[in-house]
């Protein structure tokens, strides 16, 4: 049975912190950007994965994008408030943030084919690239917000 393990890394050293089931950005001042979270996805019970994509299916009440511009082949945009980048090797520069690419919007269709998903490459047949995530808060964002990233993949 296929399963996926989400692993978090130290953004300074790149050392593995551990497996996670939820991502906590912690307390962030309004009007600023959160620290960058570095994660990857390891798949088990499969021989190969393809088309690994990350979507933002809900963002709480936080704004994801006011109007995406500069969208490139992986689906990410140059502007936005939910940062996402991915690299094959750990990059302390990217991890230092803020992340320069963003989700173009919310995956409202909740499907793997949604245009707002961002395609993540692979480091091996069953391990994704490193993924860097952050969130920029608006000055009027106050209080706790939560949402869901969704990982889509094909496997054999």
């Amino acid at each position, binding site marked *: 049975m296929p399963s996926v393990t989400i692993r978090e890394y130290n953004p300074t050293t790149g050392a593995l912190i551990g497996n996670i089931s939820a991502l906590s950005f912690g307390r962030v001042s309004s009007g600023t950007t959160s620290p960058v979270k570095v994660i990857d996805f390891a798949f088990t019970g499969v021989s190969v994965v*393809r088309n690994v994509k990350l979507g933002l299916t809900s963002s709480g009440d936080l704004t994801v994008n006011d109007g995406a511009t500069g969208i490139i082949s992986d689906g990410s945009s140059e502007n936005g408030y939910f940062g996402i980048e991915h690299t094959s090797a750990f990059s302390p520069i990217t991890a230092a943030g803020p992340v320069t690419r963003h989700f173009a919007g919310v995956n409202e269709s909740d499907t793997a084919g949604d245009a707002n998903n961002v395609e993540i490459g692979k480091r091996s047949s069953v391990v994704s690239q490193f993924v860097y995530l952050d969130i920029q808060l608006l000055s009027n964002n106050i209080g706790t917000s939560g*949402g869901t990233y969704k990982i889509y993949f094909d496997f054999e």
Partner: protein
Amino acid sequence: MPKNTAIYSCDCTSEESLRNPLVGVEVGMQVSGFFKTVQPSYEVAFPGDNIHVSRGGLEKTISNGGAIFCQDSSQLFSMDSGIISMRICLPDYDIVNGVYKGLGTSKGTLEDFILFGVNMGEHYIAQPGLYGALTKNGVEFTIWSSAGRETLLETNLNVEAGDDIVLNFIWDKNGILGDETSNMSITANNILAYKEAEIESDSLSDVGGVGFPASFWVLDTPYRKNDLHIILRRLEIYSSADSSERLTARPLKTFARDIESGEYISSGVSTLSFEIIASQGPCVNIDSPDFFRVAISDVDMRAIGPIASSSHKNGEDLGNEKIQTLPAVLLDLPPGFVETRRIEP
């Protein structure tokens, strides 16, 4: 016989209804042990419940050990194809991600909660056989033919205790759902699991030698090892899996084909929740100014007490300066001064 006609169909209103079903009296379905009859109720009991569906049924408990069986399963279906459809209710525990939470409470010797078995032994099936069960790994459907044992697990089903579940176990060696590479599936309520499976056309009519067919058991083994609590509301059996009318209304998972290799691949999805706490950053809050009337004070700068005096040359530290602590209230006058106050009208 039309392909979509049930071989056996029973509303499970009483033990007698099992022997005299709506369809299939001739297959000789029988009862082992006994069942408690749950009176029909048309109450809408949970979201998605249908007022037209009777919620009566036959209740198997730890004490009554009820089971249903047919001595000759070849009258119902073949190893080539068939559908076993059950509407059940598990009153005591939830199903979470396909796993029935009541499994650990069994006092019996079986790890699984058997829903049905063909060619059933004391604990498990023999080859050729079919097996459907609630297991610790999910809802299991196994087809064991001379081509090998193929097992499919459904792990996405979530049902609260007391809600009805419609389970369809479907197989066809020539392909189901209009896809030749999908040979067995489980639909559990509206969730579908499927896989490609090698199935051989083994005979079920003479597994123990000529004239000894494989028996079909529902809710237990011939040795009555199942001791969990369940209500069977409806049982339907079809000999053919070509039942497109039954299945097209259900949402089907998309078959993905790899562009490069042309091979079929499966899709998966997982979630990662996040939380962020937005707090006010460092800032200075300025209260609205209050405007008030100023009281003008006159200060008499004449000294009226002794005043110390000293002198020294530049660059010479005499070391005799007196260090005086500032008064707590800065508006206080130094010692020796008095304040007189005049308030203008």
